[in-house]
């Protein structure tokens, strides 16, 4: 490569001074890395939703227990996909498990992910479903029958004692699962929060903000899933269940909004050397996605709507309340996506010299483009549909049996 004959270099538009290595056309981490914390957050949030039923015994939420676990599972299966696609050498990804560098947040994430997937989600689902698998494997034929048979792992014990053990273990795993879910997503927050080189990221509150926004987005997604699944199946929505979900969503959102505000208060008050840059980011560079997307549409509007349903639940007719829950859910899910965008893209829109700004234009095609991002985001929903078809029939045999015994 002839280097001396450089005449024109395609420099993207940037303002002020950015380090020469930062003057690339695209930020190093773009859409796919936006989706990574988003998807992981939805997993953690949906799991917390499910554990409300098992651990905290919120009986009213029973109808959405399996739904939220399946939501968590379908997103969990895709959580590392955006990371993997984004790697410069995806074929070397096994190294992260073979020679994990223990001081690196990203290396530990491999184990946190493996732990959460294998030891928490899969196990909880398996214990919850084991009896159903055994029964389905007897009645279903062909591919489905084979699948259920594999999923029993050869354990066909249907005795009362065995089922009681299933429940007991499922409960224990739920309890272990809550800190694990916090760990999973707190860890994603830590991956960003640990980067002290970047004042937009390097923040001790980052893991907490990530966990809280994850819980909010997960519950919101479960609300949406529940309403859509009920609508598709033409089953009536359990209003009590939906109201309780709305209540938890409201509380979670209040806490989340408070902590995120605290973060800003702290930044504004401490006015460190990066403050001028951060101020300009909020006022100009990220004005729409931060102020309009994240703060107004993603937080304030849902807060008002959910708050109204809390204050005047009895006075608002069911159908209006349903619409309000769905609208808040949608807004929150989009608002949290905007929040992930603001964190990931925002952190790469200013120079680490704190003297200038880069710009970012998303491509439509390409590995980091809109199309790819859309596909990666659509995949967990496709998996969710398949899972609902396979594992969430209109009435599960276990539930039918339970209904008889109770």
């Amino acid at each position, binding site marked *: *490569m002839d*280097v*001396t004959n*450089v005449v024109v*270099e*395609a*420099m993207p538009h940037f303002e*002020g*001074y*950015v*380090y*020469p*290595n*930062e*003057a*690339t056309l695209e930020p*190093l*981490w773009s859409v796919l890395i936006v989706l990574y914390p988003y998807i992981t957050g939805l997993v953690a949030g949906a799991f917390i939703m499910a554990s409300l039923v098992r651990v905290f015994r919120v009986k009213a939420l029973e109808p959405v227990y399996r739904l939220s676990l399946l939501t968590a599972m379908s997103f969990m299966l895709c959580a590392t996909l955006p*990371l993997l696609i*984004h*790697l*410069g*050498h*995806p074929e*070397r*990804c096994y*190294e*992260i498990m*073979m*020679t*994990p*560098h223990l*001081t*690196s*947040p*990203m*290396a530990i*994430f*491999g184990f946190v992910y493996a732990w959460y997937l294998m030891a928490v989600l899969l196990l909880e689902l398996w214990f919850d479903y084991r009896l159903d698998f055994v029964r389905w494997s007897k009645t279903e034929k062909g591919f489905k029958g084979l699948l259920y048979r594999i999923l029993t792992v*050869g354990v066909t014990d249907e005795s009362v004692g065995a089922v009681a053990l299933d429940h007991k273990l499922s409960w224990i795993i739920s309890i272990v699962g809550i800190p694990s879910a916090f760990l999973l997503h707190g860890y994603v927050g830590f*991956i960003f929060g*640990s*980067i*002290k*080189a*970047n004042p937009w*990221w390097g923040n001790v509150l980052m893991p907490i903000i990530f966990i809280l926004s994850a819980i909010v987005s997960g519950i919101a997604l479960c609300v949406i899933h529940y309403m859509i699944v009920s609508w598709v199946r033409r089953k009536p929505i359990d209003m009590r269940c939906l109201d309780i979900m709305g209540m938890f969503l409201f509380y979670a959102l209040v806490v989340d909004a408070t902590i995120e505000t605290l973060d800003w208060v702290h930044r504004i008050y401490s006015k460190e050397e990066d403050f001028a840059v951060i101020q300009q980011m909020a006022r100009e560079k990220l004005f729409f996605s931060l102020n309009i997307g994240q703060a107004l549409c993603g937080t304030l509007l849902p807060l008002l709507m959910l708050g109204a349903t809390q204050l005047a639940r009895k006075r608002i007719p069911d159908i209006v309340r349903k619409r309000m829950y769905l609208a808040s859910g949608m807004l929150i899910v989009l608002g949290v996506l905007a929040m992930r965008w603001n964190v990931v893209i925002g*952190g*790469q829109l200013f*120079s*680490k*010299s*704190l*003297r200038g700004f880069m710009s970012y234009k998303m491509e439509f095609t390409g590995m980091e483009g809109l199309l790819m991002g859309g596909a990666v985001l659509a995949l967990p929903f496709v998996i969710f549909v398949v899972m609902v078809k396979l594992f969430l029939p209109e009435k599960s045999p276990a539930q039918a049996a339970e209904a008889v015994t109770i």
Partner: protein
Amino acid sequence: MKQSLSRRTVLTKLGLAAVAAAAAPAVNAAKTTVQKVLVKTEAPKDYDPTQHKWQMAFDVNRCIGCGHCVEACKQENNVPIGPYYRTWIERYIVTKPEPRSAETRGEVRVDSPEGGIHGFNDVPVPEADILQSFFVPKLCNLCEHSPCVQSCPVGATFDTPDGAVLVDPKYCIGCGFCIQACPYGCRFMNPITHTAEKCTLCYHRISRGLKPACVEVCPTQARIFGDLKNPVPDDPLQEFFKKNRVQTLKPHLGTDPRVQYANIDKEVR
């Protein structure tokens, strides 16, 4: 019956696995020997990384902003054309304050057109308005507590025993975490190899007793380079530390850079 049978097969498999695990180091050792015989290496034979400690320092007052170092670095290390620099030069222009503003300085303009590879021929501010101006060469700060090494998930970037910070291009997965973690913007993603890349202190040169390319071509000795473990007579590095009070970049981050600067300004970061 079925249960015990499956358990037996599982046990057999486990036994086989144990044997395989025990055999792996032997296989690896054999592989290494074969590689050593077959692959001809250009590496210097008598270089022992534990017997050296390389150090780089800058005297900013000596930099004339000619850009030879940037150009030489790109040539020596085959760095791709474009915004990819292992070393670069920044120009700082501090303008005079507005009259009667009671300020000590006007605005500070920093630029580095194409990393300074062609020098700095255009002066963006009329000379009469300039209070102070100077050049600052930059490269990897060789941090004692490198955030990039700390953050690499697979151990593909590392502090060498002799004081360089290297990337293993055959092992890097290209996640970019180290690039985000470097506070000094010294790393980039090589668009051809898709691995992280940075200054190696010209490891292929210093291990042969040569100077890094940028130091070799610096006409004014603004870049001072040497071996702390094997000082030579009139060692320029020792002289430099005797003569100058030094500073590091972004000391508040606790990265403890080994690259040190004499005569820089508070605006440099």
